[in-house]
């Protein structure tokens, strides 16, 4: 809904979100060691999943390429760590991610969404191959040592700040013309085009924004384990887990991914402990569960339940089509044929 001023409900939402972030920021003060590590995972994946949602939510194009951008960010930071001050590195990582996203977006987002998904599938692997080859050509080793000292709480706060920025950007976009354009595109691309929307450009811009955030996230965690190598930086598991978490939570609300991240990270920790050799298999099972059982995510389940309660309370009359025309028409509702 277009709103020219902040409505009461929206204002409330903003205040609640701000409070939640403030509360989250207190976590490192009361937790450390293993719980803090989980907290870092949660915050990092929240950032990644929410930035994934910025593009894949409204367009319904499933981007499987998060790892490619995460890895590029990680590598940019790791590569330049001794040469350039850290803030510049973060910016560089963002630029590298944006550049790759621009190339990929311009090539794939002008044709059907399926091609984009396929392209994104192998993108991380492709970037990994190219990086390995470049390192080979330049005579350096594939792995990079990163020797910056940073405390665990620092990682937590940086990632939390990133997540907060992503939420803010997502919220702003949602209220903007770009957000409206993307919702229209996601509903019916032919109508979008006839409304004067340059659909390719809108999609590319949003894809760039989404991927840049993923790269920045990668840059922020680059120093965490002291050593960065392609197989880890570009691990496809990152891409797939991000998709699962976002789908699990629900892709129609900005805070949907958050709802998916928290349970998934916790469950995955358990899996890593009790079933370390079946992680791939279980990841597949998760995908299938989501597709077959919870296609609209946890938010979808909650909203369906609420709708059912509302209909039940309103009584049988609520099920009839609304008659809102000036001249009452006696025809029952006929859903128009879409596509």
């Amino acid at each position: 809904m277009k709103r020219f001023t902040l409505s009461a409900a929206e204002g409330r939402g903003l205040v609640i979100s701000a409070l939640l972030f403030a509360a989250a920021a207190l976590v490192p003060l009361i937790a450390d060691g293993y719980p803090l590590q989980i907290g870092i995972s949660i915050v990092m994946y929240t950032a990644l999943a929410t930035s994934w949602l910025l593009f894949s939510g409204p367009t319904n194009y499933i981007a499987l390429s998060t790892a490619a951008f995460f890895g590029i960010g990680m590598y940019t930071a790791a590569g330049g760590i001794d040469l350039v001050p850290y803030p510049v590195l973060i910016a560089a990582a963002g630029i590298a991610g944006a550049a790759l996203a621009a190339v990929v977006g311009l090539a794939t987002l002008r044709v059907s969404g399926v091609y984009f998904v396929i392209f994104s599938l192998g993108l991380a692997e492709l970037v990994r191959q190219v990086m390995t080859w470049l390192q080979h050509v330049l005579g350096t080793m594939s792995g990079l040592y990163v020797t910056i000292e940073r405390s665990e709480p620092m990682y937590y706060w940086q990632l939390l700040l990133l997540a907060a920025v992503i939420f803010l950007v997502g919220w702003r976009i949602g209220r903007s013309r770009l957000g409206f354009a993307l919702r229209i595109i996601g509903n019916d691309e032919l109508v979008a085009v006839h409304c004067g929307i340059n659909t390719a450009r809108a999609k590319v811009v949003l894809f760039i924004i989404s991927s840049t955030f993923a790269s920045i996230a990668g840059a922020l965690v680059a120093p965490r384990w002291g050593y960065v190598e392609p197989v880890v930086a570009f691990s496809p598991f990152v891409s797939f887990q991000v998709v699962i978490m976002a789908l699990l939570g629900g892709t129609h609300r900005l805070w949907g991914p958050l709802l998916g991240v928290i349970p998934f990270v916790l469950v995955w920790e358990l899996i890593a402990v009790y079933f370390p050799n079946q992680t791939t298999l279980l990841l597949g099972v998760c995908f299938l569960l989501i597709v077959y059982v919870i296609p609209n995510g946890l938010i979808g389940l909650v909203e369906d339940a609420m709708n059912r309660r509302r209909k039940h309370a309103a009584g049988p009359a609520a099920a009839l089509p609304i008659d809102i025309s000036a001249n009452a028409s006696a025809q029952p509702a006929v859903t128009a044929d879409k596509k």
Partner: protein
Amino acid sequence: MDIVIIGLLLGGTYALMAMGLQLQYGVARIMNLANGEILIAGAFSTFWFYSATKASPLLALFLVAPAAFVLNWAIYRILIYPLVRRAKSQGKLEVDSILATFGISFIAVGVLLAIFGGQYLDYSYLSRPIFIFGERYGLNRVVAFLAAAALCTALYLWLHKTRAGLALRAVSVNPSASGLVAINVAQTSALAFALGGAVTAVGGGLLSMFLTFDVSLGVVFTLKALVIVILGGVGDIRGTIVASFILGFAETAVATLIDPGLTLAAAYILFMIVLLVRPEGLFGRRTA
């Protein structure tokens, strides 16, 4: 010169896996991201057969093909068909089938890991040299190519000369119109999906004769098959064959002239070119 020959030999063998995907995507309209895993399963099964019996891997294919057919039929009936029924549009079905087959691919990798472990599989069969134009090539590559060529020809003839093949081609052009002329679209799609899986698995078996495999390579093969199908044009077998050769050649050229670790880059370069120049592929039908 030998780049050309090796490229052609490779491409011809790739044609089988791409044909499999072509049947699944072009007819059954399922973007099967587990295609690479089916190929790997075919490769591993052939390897296992050869290790156990020491008989020609070509014989293994007679067991692999029906097994893959049955398995893929089951996958379609149990996992895919519910999605087809509940999808409200082709776009929604594509998204759902991508995610579902993606999930299946992980499960397949998990199962293969459990059975075969993380080892690389490699066996030598017919790795004697054969001389073509004065250069030596592995006999196994040539045999694989010939087998693939024979199978592709058989498949092509079946599609164009039999009633069942006609039904498949009709469904690939227009499923709803096919239904109107009394073609059982659901059955035909299931048949196409199962047949596609069988063809891919056989392709895997043939590739195993001269390539090294490990369980994680599925994605790479899926991508190559996808690029071939897209490059050739969805729904057209001739395109698939031509595109397979193009990819085989491009890949070999890159591997020989630049770096063997960049084979995926070769596929992606072709992908980009298709997307930018002719998105419907070489033989594809352009939607007006």
